[in-house]
């Protein structure tokens, strides 16, 4: 919303300067977005008098002016056609900055004649586009005085209007807020009825069906005959131009002006182009209106049109139509001042993608009492500017009931607002804003004015009081708090936080990727999950909710490889979507390692990443979440996006808690990323939380003084037997003594026989009471060999 300072002062009697006004506007919630002050940068320009203008001796189109500044007489060369003797002009002297070019003016010589200054056009001062000639100042302008005092330099203020402030859609509402905040007095508005001197034969005929009557509850019209349309006076054109509107003709400009001035949109029809009665009705499906912007709109039956007996004339509350519009020759104007339903105006505007000042106002909600006084103010202005005779006002429908009473306890200002404001100040603020107050003590009855449809409850009244008193006066009080803060994170949240830190500690870089991806990629990674698409994706390749975090990580690895970083490890913690309803998302940790473990190095420790790197990441996350990895079972049953032989899942009982492995080469190819790529996905929520214990105490450490004994065994087993199974069986052979079993070699070779492999394990025995004798060690060894043979079919390798 834009307006000028002088415009504001039409409604506000104030001594306050521009800076004070803009600061107060922001303080009361009418946030100033910008101020254009045309006087800025014109401080050095002065009024001068051209005493004589002669022909330049060396140039046909240049004039040689003798210019009096009051203190000296200068010689200035000027090319403007209107540079003539006895003219008051704007003079720039050497040293000032010319606004249009931003350059400092220097003394110069033009065609061999010295020029000691420059006479300026509006364009050169950035005051307009006019550069047909130099500015001609009034004859009474005082020579030598700053031009900022002589030119009409009206600062333009732009405010960012929040959608609730329907009252501030007009300059007058803004002035009312400033007056309430103590920045002057609101001037009275002359909205007294203008007596109708003509009978009006044209009636208002409301054609809305009962269920849609709210779409246009009231329609006021008036005929003004004998008007002379034409160009608007300078002040009116200046104001409209200053806020970015185009002056059209005085009849149109009056309606434009009042929309901004009072927040009251109006429309002017050429009465000669109307047929019979006029009113609002629903558009017919497919009905067309040729609008004032030169476009034709096709309407549907939810929309309201203004129509006479012959045709739809305009899109109600949004834009008038071309055929019935006023023109230069209009002699009789029919004014429309109506009310429209904000929701229907918004819906219509969006469907037609048509934005106008009228829509803006009606969509937010125009003062429901304004239809009739709006037409009175407009009539007075038209009679003033165009002459003519006004007819009787004709009205259809009625203003909707807006009066309501809010019970208010002024003590609420302190209890909700946190600031002490005296009761008479509270009362004064509300009354200056137009609220009517009765009652006393803690039982006030407050009636909001017609223009404040946003005020509904006592909390709204508190806001009004705080806002006008100044939010910035609210003191800052720390939240009262317990002597010692509690833990912020729940155990589940702690698990997630720890997961991140553990993976970063393992050398992976955390990333955050979109929750959506191309459905083609979702299909590669969703297995049995449904495809969850968006009805209105931001782009066709972000149309599905991700069923896995991996596709985004893989394509990210591809982009990094293209940047020359083929080796890299990424991870993300976030949701995968298992369905399209609230709650059908699960929190995952996913890692992706690409290329080699490290950069090339002189010590030669580099190798391509493999499935075990991914398994290690998965186990690290599970361990960080409090799982003992001994309880995990690795099963070669990873989802289809992994390499069938180089992947697996980790199970806790029957529950899969993680999947890991090499990304299936076909999937990598589909995503156009070169391998090797290894990944893991951990289902964080499936990891059981550690059991709540009575305290943080750990079980007592039983560190034996006796030296542990290590024995190695190599078994030949069927190639399909899991090494882990051999280790587990060995471990169970003598639970009291065996504390650890490690697999230190796995070997397959022709001499072992087809389909056979050797698994070498190292078993640690920890004596409890006395050093083990050779016979005891031998006894354990026999048990291990027997157990592996029985459970895994393993033979001790010769």
């Amino acid at each position, binding site marked *: 919303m834009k307006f000028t300072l002088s415009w504001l002062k039409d409604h506000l009697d104030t001594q306050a300067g521009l800076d004070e006004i803009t600061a107060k506007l922001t303080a009361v919630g009418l946030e100033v977005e910008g101020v254009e002050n045309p006087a800025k940068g014109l401080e050095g320009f002065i009024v001068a008098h051209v005493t004589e203008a002669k022909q330049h001796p060396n140039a046909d189109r240049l004039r040689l002016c003798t210019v009096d500044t009051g203190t000296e007489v200068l010689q200035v060369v000027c090319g403007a056609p209107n540079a003539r003797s006895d003219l008051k002009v704007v003079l720039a002297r050497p040293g000032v900055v010319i606004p249009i070019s931003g350059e400092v003016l220097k003394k110069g010589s033009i065609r061999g004649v010295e020029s000691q200054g420059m006479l300026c056009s509006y364009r050169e001062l950035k005051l307009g586009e006019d550069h047909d000639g130099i500015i001609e100042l009034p004859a009474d302008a005082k020579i030598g005085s700053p031009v900022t005092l002589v030119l009409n330099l009206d600062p333009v203020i732009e405010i960012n209007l929040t959608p609730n402030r329907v009252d501030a859609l007009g300059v007058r509402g803004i002035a009312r807020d400033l007056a309430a905040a103590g920045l002057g007095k609101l001037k009275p508005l002359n909205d007294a009825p203008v007596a109708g001197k003509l009978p009006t034969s044209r009636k208002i005929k409301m054609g809305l069906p009962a269920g849609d009557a709210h779409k246009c509850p009231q329609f006021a019209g008036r005929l003004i005959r004998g008007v002379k349309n034409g160009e608007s006076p300078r002040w009116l054109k200046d104001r409209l131009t200053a806020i970015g509107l185009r002056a059209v003709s005085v009849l149109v400009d009056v309606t434009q002006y009042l929309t901004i001035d009072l927040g009251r949109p109006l429309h002017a029809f050429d009465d000669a182009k109307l047929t019979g009665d006029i009113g609002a009705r629903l558009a017919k499906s497919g009905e067309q209106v040729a609008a004032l912007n030169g476009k034709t709109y096709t309407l549907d039956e939810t929309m309201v049109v203004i129509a006479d007996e012959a045709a739809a004339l305009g899109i109600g509350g949004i834009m008038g139509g071309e055929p019935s519009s006023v023109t230069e020759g209009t002699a009789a104007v029919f004014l429309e001042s109506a009310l429209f339903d904000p929701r229907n105006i918004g819906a219509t505007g969006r469907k037609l993608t048509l934005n106008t000042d009228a829509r803006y106002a009606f969509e937010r909600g125009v003062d429901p009492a304004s239809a009739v006084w709006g037409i009175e103010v407009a009539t007075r202005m038209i009679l003033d500017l165009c002459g003519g005779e006004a007819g009787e006002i004709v009205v259809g429908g009625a203003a909707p009931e807006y009066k309501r009473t809010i019970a208010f306890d002024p003590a609420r200002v302190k209890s*909700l607002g946190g600031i002490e404001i005296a009761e008479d100040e509270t009362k004064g603020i509300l009354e200056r804003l137009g609220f009517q107050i009765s009652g006393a003590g803690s039982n006030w009855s407050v009636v909001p004015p017609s223009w404040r449809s946003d005020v509904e409850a006592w909390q709204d009244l508190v806001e009004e009081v*705080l806002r006008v008193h100044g939010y910035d006066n609210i003191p800052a009080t720390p939240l009262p708090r317990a002597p010692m803060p509690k833990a912020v994170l729940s155990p589940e*949240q702690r698990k997630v936080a720890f997961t991140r830190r553990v993976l970063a500690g393992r050398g992976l870089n955390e990333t955050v990727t979109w929750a959506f991806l191309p459905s083609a990629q979702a299909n590669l990674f969703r297995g049995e999950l449904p495809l969850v698409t968006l009805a209105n994706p931001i782009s066709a390749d972000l149309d599905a909710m991700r069923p896995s975090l991996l596709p985004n990580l893989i394509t990210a690895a591809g982009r990094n490889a293209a940047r020359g970083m083929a080796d890299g490890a990424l991870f993300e913690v976030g949701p995968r979507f298992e369905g399209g*309803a609230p709650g059908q*998302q699960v929190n995952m940790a996913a890692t992706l390692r690409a290329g080699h473990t490290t950069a090339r190095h002189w010590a030669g420790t580099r190798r391509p990443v493999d499935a075990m790197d991914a398994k290690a990441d998965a186990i690290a996350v599970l361990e960080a979440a409090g799982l003992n990895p001994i309880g995990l079972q690795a099963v070669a049953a990873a989802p289809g996006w992994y390499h069938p032989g180089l992947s697996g899942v980790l199970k806790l009982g029957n529950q899969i808690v993680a999947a890991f492995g090499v990304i299936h080469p076909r999937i990598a190819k589909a995503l156009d990323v070169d391998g090797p790529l290894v990944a893991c996905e951990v289902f964080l929520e499936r990891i059981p939380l550690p059991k709540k214990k009575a305290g943080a105490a750990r079980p007592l450490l039983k560190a034996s003084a006796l030296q542990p004994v290590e024995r190695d065994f190599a078994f030949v087993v069927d190639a399909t037997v899991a090494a882990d199974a051999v280790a587990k069986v060995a471990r169970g052979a003598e639970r009291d003594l065996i504390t650890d079993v490690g697999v230190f070699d796995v070997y397959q070779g022709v001499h072992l026989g087809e389909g056979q492999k050797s698994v070498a394990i190292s078993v640690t025995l920890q004596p409890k009471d006395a050093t083990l004798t050779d016979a005891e060690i031998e006894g354990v060894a026999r048990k291990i060999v027997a157990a592996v043979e029985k459970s895994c079919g393993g033979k001790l390798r010769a």
Partner: protein
Amino acid sequence: MANEKIEQLRGEILGACNAAADMTALEAVRVAALGKKGSVTGLMKDLSALPPEERKAFGQQVNTLRDEVTAALDAKKAALGDAELDAKLAKERIDISLPVRPEAKGSIHPISQTMDEIAAIFGQMGFEIADGPDIEDDFHNFTALNFPPGHPAREMHDTFFLPENEKGERYLLRTHTSPVQIRTMMSQKPPIRVIIPGRTYRCDYDMTHTPMFHQVELLVIDTETNMSHLRGCLQEFVRTYFGVDDLTTRFRPSFFPFTEPSAEMDIGCSRKGGELKIGNHGDWLEILGCGMVHPNVIKACGLDPNIYQGFAAGMGIERIAMLKYGIPDLRTFFESDLRWLRHYGFAALDVPSVTGGLSR
């Protein structure tokens, strides 16, 4: 006579010991003196040939000699050993300028780090963390938050929707973290103090908007908390987060459907020379929106707004991370560019806490 022989022998052996150039030569000296057939060992054989009254004295002299020779041999052996080690070490050299074996350095994304910082600060004020689903329904995202029917935010233009399901419900991607306010108030009894960090979605993609971004929401509900507490709480937050102890704040009236009164908070800044600096330099930077929870919202959650009141606030996590850490472009947060992640990311062990230091 015997004395002379011993003296001579001592001289010879110690001389040879001293002259031994290496371990082999020294060993030869030892064998020649103390070996089975050695000269000192041989002296003991002479003992039996002596008259009994001389034997004792002679025996003592031989023992002394043997001790002396042994000591001399040990000393020489140690000296030779040192020299040998020195010679060996003198040959062992590496180029200490060579790079060490590479170790991958991981990092925490600025969004996670900022969320941890926020949690650390509000944790001090007694807040807990609440979360909720990314896919929401109309009730939690709009209706309960007092968005009127027909509000522009409910349009496809601003909000991502899922296709209507067979029950006629149209789910959406939450446009803010505020629906978790509703979920919290409906499942928890006041007093409530929660922060709600999370992913949010809006149909917007340009220089300063991404279709997915992160917000953190604050919610306090009890019977006493008023706007002065709101300001105090937020002021403490921005001062701690930006590390400016006396950072000034400005409260301005604003509008949100779910708060009444509503406010926006600005913090002091400077924009001189096109560079944004947080601090009390006379200019203002809008940082967050907030307000007292709207009575209709409290009502929608089954509480009486004449008894319960409190505040809500929300801010963009990327935005405050950009401001604090000087990250210029929002879109880069989601590009997974390893150079960016390593440059703007945080070390794994750099866990923010108010007592241990929020940021380095």
